[in-house]
């Protein structure tokens, strides 16, 4: 019998069809096929092997100063041991285990092949963008010695340091008697000065002596507050501030109500705005004043706070505009019970309103009114209807928001830090900052749990505290390059109260360009160079005529085109640190950071540079006994006393090795305690609504409305809005020269200027079209430099009269391989003429966004 079964064509087709159908339908397990044993798949293998964690503090990416660990390990791709990434530290009250993209960028910045590791010295005397400086390399110490020899030939008024106010820069500039001006003025100068004049009263126990870079009141209890009003607080840059975002979101999840006033609808507004208003740029002051009026007129304020902790009842002499004091200097208020003035701390039934009160004062008849009465009179016309006409925010909403804000008091706040509307953006920003502080006073929300938190219980001493001076510092130059002497309100703070104050960088380019005194400029970077400036073209032109220009920087950035020497600076992770938690100071806390690696190459630290220059040119301030003996060099140990004072550790080594760089005292927050300790009239300290210093220079001591410096004219109708991507900071090459970050920017149109779709259509523009932006020449008569960029139309720009630019792009340095990229926002912002500036603003800021531009198709 033939057992071989023949497969007919029909059968073959039938079985093939069934098989195919089954294959198509497939087994329900088809996707669970495992090619490897569990954990053996190539993507289940780690790409690096972590070997150690190094605690660090993020002191340069933003204000938050997050505490985290740098992970050092072996990169499986390259086989090299290096810092690879970060891990959060959940104990840190600021970051609570988080950090942002910028901090991650720092890790890779350490190994950027464009990083400067040797000192560069110019051989070609011709300076300027694109010119080849003819670099030669020199030993860093030799370069500093050469610089010192040149400095010996200059008078002190011929030297300018462009530097932040860190302890060593302060001592160096003060000991040499030279001017120090700080770029960060244009980030937070207004906040700093107004807070100093109204609240922190420098020098004080905490804020003027801290190791943080800003000295501003930037602690907000976002997670506990019930109601917040944001005047442009949610700039794009805030989208990556991990140290505050984690608190804000917790608050939002807990039901915090947040009101957004901003001509840009940012990603924060998408999810967190209970109400969003597309306010007209530079008119936030009108809304704030109207809010204050509603609260005062309806007596919705916290009367006890005003009585006990503010100057609301303090009498102002109507003739002299000065506050009245008793023989001991204590402010006087009007006692309604006694019908006469009495010391404010001992005043029976204090009058907040009424008057004028006339009485004998030191043998002379005076007429006076309480501060709150004067404020009410100032605000007489500032109704919500009035504010609505100016700001284009509905009057009924302003009225309601003011009432809701007052009803939620004292757990409310109006956060402000860096470039929000109360920053140095407009010529009226200083008045907005004053009004915000007053709104905080009316609601008793300063130095209060769930509101504005103040530092207490920790202090990192100044260099002068640990290495006291043997003799007083010399006088500062009479006519500094940044014109600070023409602004007595802030100059007094510099000279007499806090030399770490930020300065007047918004005018330093004007001063260098128009002045003839300065011969040497020393930029202390990293990343504090030209891009951080407003109108860098004026500074560039000025630097061409300088005798000596030096930069201490992490990278040879744009500054290098004008520099005679570029000294290599350490990366921030190559330095040890000790930091307080200024940005969430609910509890006394200290955190520390260790160096991840020894600085490579011929990198030279700032302490060493300062020591060398100081010992060579002013040794009496750099030795412990005022001699010039190098063996007596000051130690500069500010960490040990700070740690020992609170019992955190025996010294810095003990803190890092045995305490893991962390100490906290989680005691309950004591409301209004710090006001008493640091305020005016301490130890019974109070905060001030009335700023006597403004009255002394011809401005009202209380806020009034003032419009912007410039207005829309003809084609110059686009109000300039400046922000920055969450992953950039200034012009820091840590990010700009990072190809990964640049790709991210390109994908998100950060390399374009943004306008509303309606504005784009009106100009007949398409996305990606090249446009030219030009500042109104009336306000930028010298060295204009129009900006060329592609345009991006976004409905996030909610007004048709605005254009938004991103700060921190636009490198020109040919030594940064990835950095030749984009436009510069600063090119459009005029340097401030001091004669114009002082007419509008006694603090002398740079009004970075008080500009109207024209947009034309290129």
């Amino acid at each position, binding site marked *: 019998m033939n057992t071989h079964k023949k497969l007919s064509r029909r059968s073959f087709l039938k079985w093939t069809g069934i098989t195919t159908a089954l294959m198509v339908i497939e087994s329900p397990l088809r996707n669970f096929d495992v090619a490897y044993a569990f954990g053996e798949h190539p993507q289940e293998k780690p790409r690096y092997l972590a070997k150690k964690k190094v605690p660090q503090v993020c002191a340069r990416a933003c204000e938050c100063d997050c505490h985290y660990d740098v992970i050092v390990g072996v990169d499986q791709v390259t086989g090299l041991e290096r810092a690879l990434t970060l891990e959060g530290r959940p104990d840190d009250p600021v970051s609570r285990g988080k950090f942002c993209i910028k901090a*991650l960028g720092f890790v890779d910045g350490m190994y950027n092949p464009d990083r400067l590791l040797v000192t560069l010295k110019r051989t070609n005397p011709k300076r300027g963008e694109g010119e080849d400086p003819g670099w030669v390399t020199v030993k860093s110490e030799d370069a500093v010695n050469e610089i010192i020899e040149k400095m010996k030939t200059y008078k002190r008024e011929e030297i300018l340091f462009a530097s932040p106010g860190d302890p060593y820069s302060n001592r160096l500039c003060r000991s040499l008697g030279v001017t120090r001006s700080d770029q960060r003025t244009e980030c937070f100068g207004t906040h700093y000065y107004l807070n100093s004049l109204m609240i922190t009263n420098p020098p004080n126990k905490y804020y003027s002596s801290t190791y943080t870079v800003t000295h501003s009141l930037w602690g907000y209890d976002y997670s506990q507050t019930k109601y917040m009003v944001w005047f442009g607080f949610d700039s794009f840059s805030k989208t990556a501030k991990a140290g505050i975002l984690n608190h804000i979101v917790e608050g939002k999840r807990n039901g915090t109500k947040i009101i957004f006033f901003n001509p840009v609808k940012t990603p924060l507004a998408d999810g967190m705005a209970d109400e969003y208003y597309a306010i007209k740029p530079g008119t936030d002051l009108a809304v704030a004043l109207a809010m204050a009026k509603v609260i005062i007129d309806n007596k919705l304020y916290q009367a006890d706070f005003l009585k006990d902790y503010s100057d609301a009842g303090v009498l102002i002499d109507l003739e002299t505009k000065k506050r009245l004091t008793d023989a001991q200097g204590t402010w006087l208020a009007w006692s309604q019970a006694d019908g006469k003035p009495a010391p404010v701390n001992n005043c029976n039934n204090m009058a907040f309103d009424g008057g004028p009160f006339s009485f004998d004062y030191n043998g002379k008849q005076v007429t006076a009114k309480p501060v709150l009465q004067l404020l009410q009179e100032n605000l007489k016309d500032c109704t919500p209807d009035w504010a609505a006409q100016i700001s284009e925010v509905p009057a009924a909403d302003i009225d309601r928001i003011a009432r809701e804000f007052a009803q939620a008091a004292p757990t409310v706040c109006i956060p402000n830090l860096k470039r929000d509307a109360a920053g140095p953006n407009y010529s009226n920003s200083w008045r907005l900052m004053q009004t915000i502080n007053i709104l905080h006073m009316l609601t008793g929300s300063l130095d209060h749990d769930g509101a504005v938190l103040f530092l207490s219980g920790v202090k990192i001493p100044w260099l002068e505290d640990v290495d006291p001076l043997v003799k007083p510092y010399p006088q500062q130059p009479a006519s500094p390059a940044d014109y600070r002497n023409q602004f007595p309100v802030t100059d007094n703070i510099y000279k007499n109260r806090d030399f770490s104050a930020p300065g007047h960088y918004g005018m330093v380019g004007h001063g260098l360009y128009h002045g003839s005194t300065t011969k040497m400029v020393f930029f202390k970077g990293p990343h504090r160079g030209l891009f951080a400036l407003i109108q860098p073209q004026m500074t560039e032109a000025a630097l061409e005529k300088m005798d000596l220009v030096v930069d201490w920087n992490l990278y040879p950035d744009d500054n290098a085109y004008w520099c005679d020497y570029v000294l290599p600076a350490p990366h921030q992770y190559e330095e040890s640190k000790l930091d307080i938690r200024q940005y969430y100071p609910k509890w006394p806390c200290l955190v520390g950071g260790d160096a991840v690696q020894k600085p490579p190459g011929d990198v030279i630290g700032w302490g060493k540079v300062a020591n060398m220059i100081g010992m060579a040119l002013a040794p009496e301030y750099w030795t412990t006994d005022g001699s010039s003996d190098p063996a007596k060099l000051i130690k500069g140990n500010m960490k040990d006393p700070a740690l020992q004072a609170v019992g955190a550790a025996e010294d810095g080594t003990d803190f890092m090795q045995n305490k893991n760089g962390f100490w906290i005292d989680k005691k309950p927050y004591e409301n209004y305690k710090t006001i008493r300790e640091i305020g005016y009239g301490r130890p019974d300290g109070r905060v001030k609504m009335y700023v006597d210093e403004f009255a002394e220079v011809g401005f009202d001591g209380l806020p009034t409305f003032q419009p912007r410096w410039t207005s829309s004219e003809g084609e110059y109708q686009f109000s300039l809005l400046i922000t920055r991507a969450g992953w950039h900071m200034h012009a820091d090459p840590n990010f700009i020269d990072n190809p990964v970050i640049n790709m991210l920017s390109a994908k998100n149109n950060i390399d374009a200027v943004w306008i509303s779709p309606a504005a784009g259509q009106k100009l007949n523009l398409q996305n990606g079209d090249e446009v030219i932006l030009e500042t109104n020449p009336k306000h930028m008569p010298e060295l204009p430099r129009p900006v060329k960029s592609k345009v991006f139309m976004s409905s996030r720009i909610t007004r048709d009269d605005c254009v938004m630019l991103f700060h921190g792009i636009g490198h020109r340095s040919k030594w940064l391989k990835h950095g030749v990229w984009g436009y510069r926002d600063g090119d459009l912002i005029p340097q401030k003429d001091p004669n114009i500036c002082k007419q509008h603003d006694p603090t002398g800021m740079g009004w970075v966004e008080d500009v109207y531009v024209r947009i034309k198709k290129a």
Partner: protein
Amino acid sequence: MKQYAILLDSRFCTGCNTCFYKCVQENRLHDVAANGNTRTLVKINDEGMYHHRCMHCIEPTCVANCPKKALTKTDYGPVLWDTNVCIRCGTCVQKCPFHVPMLDQPNNQIVKCSMCAHRNLGQDENAIPACVTVCPTGALEFGERGAMVAKAKQMAKDGGLNLYGLEENGGTNMLILTKADPTAVGYPAVQKSSAGMSPVAIGGTAVGVAAIAAAAYAGLKKYSTRRNEIAKED
């Protein structure tokens, strides 16, 4: 084994892209990312934050269509890509309904999220993908899929939010809550059922066998037809 999922509450995503850079460092993808090829990236769009990242479908179209079985679906959630098996044909790039996998030619690799499987996701109950650990606002959450689905549904109901990824392409291990319509935010409109296998792939496994069977059928049919033609000619 538990199956995991990532839940994104877009209301609290600020577009900071810390997740993006952490992913680059975690997986050492600097060169690839510089070319524009990323495992996860947040695009700040007008209507919200669009996360371009693998959805880790329950029935992945990329897996079904991969001719070399270089893509596999794990039983704990992630879809993984095997560099040793992949022939870089780009089928997954073409077939993914979410337009996610990228072929980075200079570095010769497919770029697609692994849900950080290397962090022992299937074994260690405390393991969390790198992007989730760093999200400054906690907008990203990670957990057992059933729990994440229940939470997402409740949040969608309470907040009037859209839930993307629950049903798209038959369901995914990436669940996204949005205020605006997800397609307005930037997410692709994807059919609710899995696109499953597409007949274009040729080669190994089930798809390959089917293709061979089809080819054999076509060949035999042609042979049979020719024989008939010859017989008629005879």
